[in-house]
Structures are given as structure tokens and as C-alpha cells.
């Protein structure tokens, strides 16, 4: 039994990796999401890396994660009959999600005007790397390129070494989830008007939004951050954020003021118990240690900060992640382990909330465990998604069941290479 929140709404998902998560979210919420793919399979099936390192139409980890919950039909959009099928599907749908290169849909006579003529209530969400009005409207954009364009890459990495992206590309997940937000906002507008609209999601802007408002620093403070490695970047006081411990890394936020003074005081107490605290740390008024104070730091402040980092590092090296975290939680200290996926997989917090779900793999039914609901709804819970679909797995059920084509008709379309 799926979630009932978006019961009765249908989504045609034509996206590549830039939008796939959007359809996944709508499917989680109960919409009927149908992927319309080329006969050889859609682009998300080719996104490396692959399960067991073996490429195949149903083994992309990205595909398994973000096309779960969807149905799949095939349609050859190079043929007029294939395009007519897509139009028939769109006539019976509420949303179209797409991320084709600019102009592609117009070039095959499936531009928004055509679609809206057929279905005025249609909400079309187009995901574009750089928007549709600037010099970059036709630009190619691998994920690392939009991560760079949006300013996130500039702030990640060691000074003097290349800027970085995460090893699981992230920009496309921001644009995909933003597409779902936009679709649902437009749905509320449609309730009043009965009329759909077209939405453009700008991937570059989605990445800028992750910068914690750092954008305003050059204008308001006259300077801007550079990448700071494992330090907490700040124009006023550069503080070490990531520390080594016995079996990995931990993160400690050394903070003062109303939000951090309690945590830091308790940290100093813990260090004192183990013989790692300096006298100055015990006598410091952490409540007064605020961003405003950082505006006028003297050499002693900087020396003390360095001493604190040094002592914290030696202290953390005496323990492992688990001990540090459980003690940190008990003492209410602003620290956390740098968890690996292995730590996450065995986390008691997620276990107690029954977060992970088991979903059969599309190719062979092998059980795959994956993240479950992104939110817990008291009345309409999100369940485990249906497995990511095999190519054209739902051709018969959609073309016959939804469009009312006869089995013979579908067979003939198949013979002509249209589905």
C-alpha cells in the first residue's frame, strides 16, 4: 500500500540524472510516476558506478536509488507514433518532468505549448543547468560543472590543492528535489485556477543555495572565503573542525555565546577529568566568546585557539568514534563522528526508527536495502518503494490499462519498434 498523499496524481518522468530524484519524491508521496524511456533504456541506467561493478540496464546504483517507485514504458520519440503515445500519456497526467537539452522538446514538436494545448492543467517542470535566458542556456553540464558554477566547489578542498566535489555527485540531487518542490507549489496554484504552468529549475541557483548565505560576504564584509580544508571557514577566526581519533575522524564545533558556551564548558570539564585541559580553558568565560568578539582578536586569543585545537586533537586520539560520540551525546557537547556508510548502516538511531527498507532488485529479485521515508507522516506513511523498473516493464499495463489500447495494437507498435 503506497502513501496516499498524492493519490490520483500522475507524473511523466523524462529526466536524466539532473531530475530523477524529483520523480522519486513524488512517487514516495503516492503519485503514479511513469518513466517514458527510449527502447534501449533511459539515461539514468547508464550512470556509474554499478552494483558489483557490472554495468547493465538495471545495475546503476543511481538508477536503483532514484528510479525506485516508478513504472517504465518505452516509446521511440524519433517516430511520430511514439510521440503520439507520449502525448496520449501526457493528456492523462498532471506533471511532466524533463531535463533535455534546451530546445530538444520543441524540435520534436513536444514543446510546452503543444503539451499544454492537449492538457491545459499540465504542470511541466524543466530542469536546466544554467537557465534558459543566459549565455549558458545550451551548455553541457556534468555534475561537477554545476557544482563549480554554483560556488560550492570553490569552498571545498585544501588551500593550494584543487577544489573538490563529493564522491557522490550532489548538484543533480539538489535540482531533482527542487523540481519536486516546484511541482507541488504549482499544484496548489492549479487548485485555484484549474490551469497548469511551466517551471524552470535552475541547477546553478540550486547549488548557490547551499552556501549558507556566504554570497553576501563579499558585499557586506568586503572579502570572501577561500577553501579551508578541514577548518571551519570564517573571515574572523579560522577554527579546526575535523579532528583525528583512534579509528577515524570526529567533528568538534568550538563555540561560545548562548549556543556554544554550555557545550564548550562541558567539553573542558571532560578534558579536565582526563588531564587534557589547560588552566586558561577553565577560567575562560565562554559565554562572551562570540562572533562579535572575533572582530577584535588579539594574539593571545589566537594562541589560545591554537592551544585548544592542539589539546583537543591529543584528547580525541585517545578514543574511538563510538566512545567520543556516546560520551559527547551524554554530556551534550557539539561534536559528532565522521560517519562512514558502514557506521550509518549500523546506527541504532536509524534502527530504532526502522529507517531502511528492503526492495527487490529489478534484474534478479535480490533484496536491496536502501534509505526509507524522508519523513514520517502520522496519517499517510510513506512505505517501501516498488523496485526500479526493468526497461518497458509496464508497457502492457500502461498502454492497455491506462490508454486503452488493445493487446494487438501494443504488439504491432512493438513490431514496428515504437515501444
Amino acid at each position, binding site marked *: 500500500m503506497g502513501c496516499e498523499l498524492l493519490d490520483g496524481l500522475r507524473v511523466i518522468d523524462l529526466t536524466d540524472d539532473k531530475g530523477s530524484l524529483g520523480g522519486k519524491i513524488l512517487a514516495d508521496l503516492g503519485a503514479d510516476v511513469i518513466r517514458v524511456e527510449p527502447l534501449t533504456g533511459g539515461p539514468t541506467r547508464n550512470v556509474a558506478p554499478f552494483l558489483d561493478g557490472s554495468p547493465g540496464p538495471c545495475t546503476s546504483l543511481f538508477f536503483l536509488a532514484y528510479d525506485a517507485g516508478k513504472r517504465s514504458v518505452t516509446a521511440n520519440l524519433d517516430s511520430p507514433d511514439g510521440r503520439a503515445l507520449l502525448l496520449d500519456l501526457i493528456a492523462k497526467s498532471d506533471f511532466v518532468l524533463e531535463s533535455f537539452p534546451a530546445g530538444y522538446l520543441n524540435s520534436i514538436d513536444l514543446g510546452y505549448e503543444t503539451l499544454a494545448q492537449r492538457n491545459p492543467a499540465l504542470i511541466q517542470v524543466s530542469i536546466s543547468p*544554467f537557465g534558459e535566458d543566459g549565455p549558458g542556456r545550451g551548455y553541457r553540464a556534468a555534475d561537477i560543472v*554545476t557544482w563549480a558554477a554554483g560556488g560550492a566547489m*570553490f569552498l571545498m578542498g585544501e588551500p593550494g590543492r584543487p577544489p573538490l566535489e563529493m564522491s557522490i555527485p550532489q548538484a543533480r540531487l539538489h535540482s531533482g528535489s527542487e523540481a519536486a518542490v516546484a511541482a507541488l507549489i504549482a499544484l496548489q496554484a492549479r487548485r485555484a485556477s484549474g490551469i497548469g504552468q511551466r517551471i524552470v529549475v535552475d541547477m546553478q541557483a540550486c547549488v548557490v543555495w547551499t552556501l549558507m548565505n556566504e554570497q553576501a560576504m563579499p558585499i557586506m564584509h568586503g572579502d570572501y572565503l577561500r577553501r579551508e580544508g578541514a577548518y571551519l571557514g570564517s573571515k574572523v577566526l579560522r577554527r579546526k573542525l575535523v579532528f583525528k581519533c583512534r579509528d577515524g575522524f570526529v567533528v568538534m564545533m568550538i563555540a561560545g555565546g548562548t549556543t556554544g558556551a554550555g557545550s564548550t564548558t562541558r567539553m573542558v570539564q571532560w578534558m579536565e577529568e582526563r588531564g587534557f585541559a589547560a588552566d586558561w580553558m577553565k577560567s575562560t568565560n565562554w559565554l562572551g566568546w562570540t562572533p562579535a568578539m572575533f572582530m577584535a582578536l588579539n594574539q593571545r586569543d589566537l594562541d589560545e585557539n591554537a592551544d585548544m585545537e592542539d589539546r583537543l586533537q591529543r584528547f580525541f586520539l585517545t578514543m574511538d568514534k563510538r566512545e567520543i560520540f556516546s560520551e559527547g551525546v551524554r554530556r551534550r557537547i557539539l561534536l559528532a563522528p565522521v560517519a562512514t556508510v558502514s557506521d550509518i548502516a549500523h546506527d541504532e538511531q536509524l534502527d530504532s526508527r526502522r529507517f531502511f527498507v528492503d526492495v527487490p532488485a529489478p534484474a534478479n529479485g535480490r533484496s536491496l536495502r536502501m534509505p526509507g521515508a524522508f519523513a514520517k507522516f502520522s496519517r499517510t506513511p510513506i512505505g517501501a518503494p516498488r523496485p526500479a523498473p526493468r526497461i518497458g516493464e509496464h508497457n502492457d499495463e500502461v498502454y492497455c490499462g491506462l490508454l486503452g489500447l488493445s493487446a494487438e495494437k501494443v504488439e504491432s507498435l512493438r513490431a514496428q519498434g515504437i515501444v
Partner: protein
Amino acid sequence: MARFALEGTHVLDFTWVGVGPITTKYLADNGADVIRIESAHHIDILRVAPPWKDGQPSSINSSQFFASYNTSKKGITLDLAKPEARALALRLLPWADVVAESFTPHVMHNLELDYPILSALKPDLVMLSTCLQGQTGPRAEFAGFGQLLSAISGFYSISGYANDELCPPYGAYTDYVAPRFAACAVLAALEYRRNTGKGQHIDLAQYEAGLQFMSPAIIDYFATGRVAGPGDNRSERYAPHGAYRCRDEDGNERWIAIAVADDAGWRVMLTVLGAAPDDRFASIQSRIERRDELDRFMDPLVRDHPADDLTVALQAAGVSAYPIQSCIDLHRDDNLRAFDFWHWLEHQEMGPSPYEGLQHRMSATPGELRSAAPVMGQHNEEILGGMLGLSRAEIERLQRDEIVF
């Protein structure tokens, strides 16, 4: 057609800091009436965090960090620790379609403003509760910042040059993941409520929302035991794939990100860079296998080009590339400008300051930064007087008693 998509939707907003306010901002910028409830006794820490007007923390109304996430909202002050303040908040409940809060779970419970109490008074209420790790479980009460949660959620472990050379993503990363899911949750619950008349409680753990962005690695781990690590910009899809240093400009480093998917793209890129074909790198497989050698080959070819010019040339040839933009560069970026991304709003105390705009544009009912963020208690009179009918004298009394505070 209404000017804004969410006109007529009413939100009583008890959230603070990042995830909660960013979520309700989606609603406010799209026309919902959002009333934020704050108190000087429990100040939103973003009000004292930089960037500040003129680079100086002059008052609790001069933080652009706070202002950015609270556009289009109204703000009142109520010290909810006091029963009379809670009674006033409850008088706004009949008006609200949505209540949002982002404290650790005990806070609303102790204030007697949790879902069981509010839904008894208003059965069709949609209530969003979002905290770091969820309303239940052994770490439900864990309080902290998005930097910590980003480490807990695995993002730090996939960021860096090597396993012992981690370089985390900038800032409170999960604070910018969770609101996308939280907004979807609230909007879907509103849709359901409009269809059925039924409200409900949403427990959104920012941890569980964040992990949606880690899914491929989590599936991989459970299936094969492989633990994802930092990638050093390596890719199994593209080669070259990474950051390459360009010519310095104005004394600052400039870099370009380049990703080449196939052999045709590789040959085109060599032509643009004026380099001869090299047998070592002819196939995508050989380029992926010889990644370090490839980067050493690339570095001098790229080094003397201005990043902007090289981007134009590579993109004209169909190669995926873009300058690695700093925050200054972003304000000059032609594509962001063409998207009309940057906005200057007039704030009551800060005057004009720079705001990020919306990340999407709607053709018929586009959202908009409808007003700058409220200064502390800016709408006390309008809401408490206008909506609740309190007299001016009564409001002054409540201010003196630090109930409206």
C-alpha cells in the same frame, strides 16, 4: 488566477535557525501568510551571526544570515515560557493551516504546544516537526548544527582527496538538503488535507532527509560491503573530470571544472586547447585508468587560459566546463543574472542588502521575495492588535511584562 500559488495558506511558524525557516520561506515567497514567533529570551542564533550590515554586528536586526531565510514573513515576539504568551499563540491557532517547529522534541512538549495538544484544538492541522535526528529514538534530543549532522550523515566521509585527507563540504550542508524534503512534505500534506479535510503530524528527521542524497552509496554498502570514501574528483563516468588551474586574475586563483564523457569530446577538447593527440589517453578507459597522469598532462594545457574564455571555447565545442566560481564571481555570473537570481531588498534597519532569489521560476504564478525579513517584533501591533484585537494599551502592558518580548 491568484498572483501567488499559496495565497490564502496560513502558517504559524515556531521554527528557528536554518532548516525550519528555509522551509517556511518556500511557502512565504509563494504567497502564504507566515507569522514567525520569536523571543528575545530565546533568540534565533542567526540574528547574531554574520554577514552583518557594514561587516559589524550592531544589533539583532543587522544579520543578513537571518534576513535571507526569513523574507516574505511577518514576525511577532512572544516569550513562550510564560503561560500568557502561550495563550496568545493558541489564539492564532484557528487561523493556521500549518504549524511548523524545529526544536528538539521536548521543547514543544514542555510548552504544551505539541501535536497532541494542538490537534485536539484543531483536528485538521498540518504540523511539521523537524529536528536533527527525529522525534523518536535514542538520539532524538541531540541538539547541534548542520555541520555535525553532515558528518553524521556521511557527507564528510565522501569529501576529500583520500581517506586521511578529508575536506568537508562548506557549511551546514544538510541544512540545505532537508528543507527541500520538508517543503515537499508540507505541500503534499496540504494537498491531502484539501482533498480529505484531514490534517496530520510530520516528523522530518534532517538526518533521514539528508541520507536521501547518500542513497547510491548506502545501497552499495548493504549489497556489497563497499564503503564509499572521498573521491579526489575521480569519476567512473568522465575523464578528464576535475578542477584545473587557469590564469590568475586580479591576484586571485581561477580554476575551471572540466568533465569529458567520451572520446569524441576528448579529441574536441584537445583541439580547443591546441594540443596534439596523445596515444596514452585515446580511450575513456585509458584516461580513467591513468587519471593522475592525465591530470599532469592537462595542467599545463589549461594553465594560461582565462577561465571564462576557456569555458566559452570548450562549451562552444560541446565540452562540459565552467569556471569554479567564488562568491564574488557569483554576483558577476551572466547566467545567474539572466535568471534574475540576485535581489536587493530594503530592510527596515539594514537598508538595501543582497538576497538570493528563488531556485526555480514559474510561468504563471512566480514566487517572489515579497518583503525583507522582519525586525524583531515588527508586526506585533498588526498581528496582536489587528488579528487578535488587543488594544494598544494591552500590547504595551504585555511588552512591559516581557510577555510580548
